[in-house]
């Protein structure tokens, strides 16, 4: 029984570490703030969750509430990480950072009007650029 728990705990910790590593690689290689946020959320949820689950399997509840503290860390992480990511994405969008798409960055994509434009994104971006509103502006505070 102890051996099974050890193997499960080992697998959880290593897979969680690999997810953390993937999130780091994505953070470094992806092209845009929003895609990098997507990569960072991978490490925040699956990486942290699996590592903490593996340690929880090894600790049990424990004499001095080790397991309870692990669960508390996991709960706090699962509550605060999406809130921080949402606030960050909202602030970046309001600041005028246009999301990267498969056509490339919208100011670059604007230069190639003969590209296929199935979903109408380029036309929308072009209209927005001509109208001078590339991103939704923040509401004016009185």
């Amino acid at each position: 029984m102890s051996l099974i728990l050890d193997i499960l705990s080992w697998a959880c910790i290593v897979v969680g570490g690999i997810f953390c590593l993937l999130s780091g690689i994505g953070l470094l290689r992806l092209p845009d703030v929003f895609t990098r946020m997507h990569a960072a959320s991978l490490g925040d949820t699956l990486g942290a969750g699996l590592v903490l689950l593996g340690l929880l399997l090894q600790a049990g509840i424990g004499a001095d509430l080790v397991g309870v503290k692990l669960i508390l860390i996991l709960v706090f992480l699962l509550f605060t990480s999406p809130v921080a990511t949402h606030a960050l994405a909202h602030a970046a969008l309001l600041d005028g950072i246009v999301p990267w798409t498969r056509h490339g960055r919208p100011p670059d994509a604007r230069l190639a009007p003969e590209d296929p434009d199935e979903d109408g994104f380029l036309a929308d971006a072009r209209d927005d650029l001509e109208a001078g509103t590339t991103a939704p502006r923040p509401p004016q505070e009185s």
Partner: protein
Amino acid sequence: MITTGCLFILVTLALALLRAVRGPSVYDRIVAVNTFGTMIVLLLVLLGFLTDRPEFEDIALLYVLINFASTIAVLKFVKYSSLAGPGADRGASPKGGTAP
């Protein structure tokens, strides 16, 4: 096995630090620092198990909350150039405090 997890997380820390140094916009840097904080929390918990010192978990618990608060605070400072809120530097603040 805990050492393996520590190794993975150390590499992730290096990658996040590289993105924080290189990031073209300030939001890239904030994302990188947020990830850095999460990985530090995981590293603290793993080190607590590795060296058999359960006190490290209390530090990790505190660090989760500080990480969240600092991300929101830095974000607010970047957005409004002030921690007091929008429009606080345009006149007297509503509560009578001193504007920075």
